[in-house]
Each structure stands twice: as structure tokens, then as C-alpha cells.
């Protein structure tokens, strides 16, 4: 079996024709490796769902290609080994949750017992005999995830799986996804919630305006940690800080100094500051959140575009 679970190459989708053409996905090339939790990150309308739809064979690409499990996307032998929840759960409103899963199990050719196991897994066992239309948004979402899990597919594609869940439900969902990955299943997860991705994903792809801006590990994306320092007098503190972290390693942020040093450098720094008779009010290790990185990335990208448009 291939190590690359998903590979897209110049994947493009254009909607409409003539003057109303809209580029939903613009030459996206990304890879999802076996066994990882891949976070597909972007604001609403960035092209995440359209990309996922092309991976599942629901939508035909305008250009480029996508292979899943080493074969062209959408082939029956591929979809049979992929579990998916895309753009909200689509189920029969008049059927109970259990019957809905039973119908999908029949489509997949799975025995009936997988249904109860799947309901159990998303905590819906006691509501399985209620009609789908009586479910809350969060329960519908969980039923969608249950359906994607049936038959232990090699790849699980979840489009905004925590949509509509309350905080406890979100935590449960994250735990479930982590458990799936531990069990050897590959999970491709789209989200606009950075905290979620940061917590559970091994690698992320950042998409905005249909373009894949970056693809890397979460750690790489966030970069190294920094130290935040509040001390007085500021000029003397700055001098010490620049001696320790280097001239380019210090930024002044309001009444704070930000030093590009790992947390382990904190004790040495404090010793030097105290020796230089500086009053240290606060030293904290600080990691950039994915959110900051993300906004940095998407805003610069947009600014570039605006400049291009102005030229």
C-alpha cells in the first residue's frame, strides 16, 4: 500500500462561465501521508470543501489531478475504503439515526452490527431510535462522523466535524480523532478553528482564496518559541537583552521586550538582568499560536494581491 494517502497535483475548480467565472480552488498541490492527522485550515469560503469534494469524486476538477490511496479519486474501490463527512451530514430525515446508518451499511455491504458500534463510538447509542430530523445540530454532526467510521476505512475525511458541537462535544470529537489516528487510520480534517488543528494535527495545509499557502508540520508553522520580558528601566534591560539574544533577536512591543530565545534561556537572562541592576517584573515563555501565524500569512497574501491589482 502506498504511503501517500492523498496526493493532489495542480487541482483546480472553476465554477460558472463567461464573466461570472469564479476560481474556487486554484492549483492546489498537497499530500496526506499515511497515519497522520492532517489539518486542512482556512477561513470559510477558502475552498476547503470544494477540494475535499474533488478528493471524494463528488466534484470533477476543472484541471489537475487527485489520487486517493494511489488511485484516481472517486473510483468505487477507493470510496469503499474512505469514510467521509463533507459539508454537513446528509441523511434521511424520516429515518431514525440507526436506520440511516443501516441504509449506509447496506450500501457499503457491511454487516448490521457495525451500526451499533458506530453509534456507541459517537455517544449516540441511546438516541439511535429517534428520527434524524429530531436531532440537534451536534447530534446530526456526530451521526455523520459515525457513518464515516463504519467499516474502519483507511482514510477518514471530516469536513468541519466540530461544527455545531458544544465545548464538551468538541473535546470528545478531538479525543475521538486522536484515538482514530492512534489506531492507524489516517484522518484528513478541515477546520476554521485554529486551536483545534493546533491541538490534534500532525501536519497542516493552509488554504485561502482557493490557494494553498503553506503545507508543513504544526511546529514548523509556528516557528520557535520566544521570551517575553517586562523590566525597568527599559533602556538598560534592552541593552542586556541584546547582549544575550543578539541585536536582531529583540523586538520592543509596547512596554515589553520579545526575545527570540527558548524557554530554557530564561534563568540566565534573569541572572544577567539582576546583575545589571534591572528590576524584573515578568518573564514568560511565549509560543506563537497558529492563529497569529495564520493571520500573518493570510493578510500578507491578501496585501500582495492588492498590490498586484494596483500595479
Amino acid at each position, binding site marked *: 500500500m502506498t504511503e501517500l494517502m492523498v496526493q493532489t497535483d495542480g487541482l483546480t475548480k472553476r465554477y460558472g462561465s463567461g464573466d461570472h467565472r469564479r476560481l474556487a480552488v486554484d492549483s492546489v498541490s498537497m499530500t496526506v501521508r499515511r497515519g497522520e492527522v492532517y489539518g486542512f485550515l482556512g477561513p470559510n469560503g477558502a475552498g476547503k470543501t470544494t477540494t475535499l*469534494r474533488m478528493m471524494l469524486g463528488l466534484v470533477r476538477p476543472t484541471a489537475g489531478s487527485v489520487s486517493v490511496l494511489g488511485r484516481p479519486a472517486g473510483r468505487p474501490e477507493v470510496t469503499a475504503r474512505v469514510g467521509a463527512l463533507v459539508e454537513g451530514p*446528509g441523511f434521511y430525515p*424520516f429515518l431514525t439515526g440507526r436506520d440511516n446508518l443501516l441504509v449506509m451499511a447496506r450500501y457499503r*455491504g457491511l454487516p448490521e452490527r457495525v451500526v451499533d458500534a458506530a453509534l456507541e463510538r459517537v455517544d449516540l447509542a441511546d438516541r439511535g431510535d429517534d428520527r434524524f430530523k429530531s436531532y440537534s445540530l451536534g447530534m446530526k454532526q456526530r451521526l455523520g462522523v459515525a*457513518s464515516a467510521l463504519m467499516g474502519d476505512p483507511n482514510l477518514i475525511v471530516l469536513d468541519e466535524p466540530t461544527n455545531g458541537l458544544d465545548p464538551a462535544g468538541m473535546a470528545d470529537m478531538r479525543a475521538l480523532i486522536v484515538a482514530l489516528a492512534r489506531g492507524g487510520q489516517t484522518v484528513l480534517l478541515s477546520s476554521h478553528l485554529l486551536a483545534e488543528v493546533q491541538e490534534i494535527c500532525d501536519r497542516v495545509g493552509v488554504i485561502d482564496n482557493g490557494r494553498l499557502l503553506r503545507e508543513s508540520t504544526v511546529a514548523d508553522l509556528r516557528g520557535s518559541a520566544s521570551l517575553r520580558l517586562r523590566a525597568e528601566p527599559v533602556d538598560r534591560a534592552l541593552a542586556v537583552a541584546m547582549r544575550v539574544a543578539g541585536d536582531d533577536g529583540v523586538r520592543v512591543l509596547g512596554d515589553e521586550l520579545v526575545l527570540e530565545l527558548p524557554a530554557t534561556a530564561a534563568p540566565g537572562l534573569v541572572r544577567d538582568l539582576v546583575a545589571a541592576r534591572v528590576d524584573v517584573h515578568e518573564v514568560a515563555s511565549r509560543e506563537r499560536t497558529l492563529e497569529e501565524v495564520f493571520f500573518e500569512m493570510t493578510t500578507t497574501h491578501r496585501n500582495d494581491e492588492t498590490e498586484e491589482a494596483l500595479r
Partner: protein
Amino acid sequence: MNAILTATMRSTRAELLRMRRWPAVWVTLGAWAALALMFGYVFGYLAYKTGDNSFSNEGESMSSVLRDLMPISVPDVLLQGMPMFGGALMMVLGAIVAGSGYGWGTWKTVFTQGPSRSAAVAGSLVATTVYVVGTVLFTLVLYAGVSLAIAVSEGQHVVWPSAGSVLESVLAGVLVLEMWALAGFALGTLARGPALSVGLGLVWALVVENLLRGVGSLLGAVEALTHVLPGTAAGSLVGSLIGVDAGGGTPGVVDAISGTQAAWTVLAYVVALPLLSIALVRRRDVA
């Protein structure tokens, strides 16, 4: 080939399950059963009992009204309501089966389960066909029972129709209802929703074809066109088997084309409509 068959079987089993538990299906079929019973037997029996000249027995003598209620007439009664009312209801059935899944997003879910789109749609078509055949057989049994009850209560000698005439009626009935169900399915697929397809389909089946046949008697070109339309074909197929009353008689039952030509035309629709549905679904982007 085997893989396709397996996938189609799985899809059929899945569709049969969701249709069996779908109230809208039973409402539609229940409406047919109620209409069939009323127009087939209830009104005729009331007219016979009260001796009124109601609209359904205009110009008929009481003995011919009674004859229509006897078991021997079951094959004719079975077919008389099918070209129009039965067809319209089957069109509703086909349209909701095919069309509702787009709004609910269930086709999207189904198409990511494993079976190819062709297999999934074929399964849905087979399941719909099972319901159509079941409807015809159920109606046959219902009619046989009711006519037997009337014969016994009226003290008439019970004469059953020949097996050949029953088989002929059942086959023609299945063909006619199946064509309308498949037309509904194709419309539902085309419109990606039940509402527009049901509306347009009903206007077509109940109104437009009748109007066109009216215009056709004046304009040769329109008449030639009506001869290949589904309603005319279904009506003529039934008309060739049960006869057309002078003065119009049963709505939708006509003798515009010969029985053979009608049967071939209906058959052509039964083959072409599912292929159209499958071709449409295979090509499209599913949101």
C-alpha cells in the same frame, strides 16, 4: 461485471430499506389504493344499489354496471385507472425517490459509500420497480377480493377471468406504471428536487397531453407528435386491451395508436428513461 452486480444489489437493498420506512411512499401508494377502490368499485356499486344514473355509469344499463363489478372484469378494471391517475401517482413516487436526496444531501452521502454512481442509481431504480410491481399485484388482489365480495353478496355466480387475461393485464399495468415512475425518476433527477419535478410532471400527464390530443385532431403535425408521447402510448396500450367507450369513457384511455405500437413505445420509454437518469447522475457535480 460481478462487482457492478454486487454494488447494484447492495444499493437495491439499501433503497428498499429506506423506502419501506418512508411515510411519503406509503401515502402515495395509499392514495392510489383509495382512488382505485373508489373509482373501480365503490362508485359503481353505489350506482348499482341506488339505481342512480351517476357520471360513472351514464348510458349504461344496470346489468352492464353489475358485470363490471364481477370477478370476470377484474383484468379490465385493473387497467382502467392506470394510464392517468395511477401513472400520475407513480410519477410522484419516482420523483420523490430521485429528487429528495439532493436537498437532504443523501445522494452526496450515498455516492461516497462505495457503489459507483451507476450502481447506486440502478439500485434506486430497481427498488422503485419493486414497489411498482408490488402495487400492481396488490391492486389485483384487492380487486379480486372486493369483486368476489360483491358477487357473493349479490348472489351472483362467480366466474373468474382466464389466467391469460389476468397476466396480460398485469404485464400491461406494470409496463404503464413503470414508465410513469421512471419518468418521475428522470424528472426528479433532472430538477434535483421533488417539488418542481412533481409539479411539471403532473401538469404534463394530467393536462398537457390531453390538450395536445385535442389540438392534434385539428393539426396533423401535432397529432403525429402526440403519437409518440408517453400518455398517449400508455392510454392506447390500455385502450387496446380493455376497449375505449364511445364518448371518451375513462379519462386517459384512448385508441390513438394500435396496441402493438403503443406497447413498443411504452417499452422504449422504459428502456430510455433509466439510461437518461444514470447518464445525468454520472456526469454531474454533487454538492
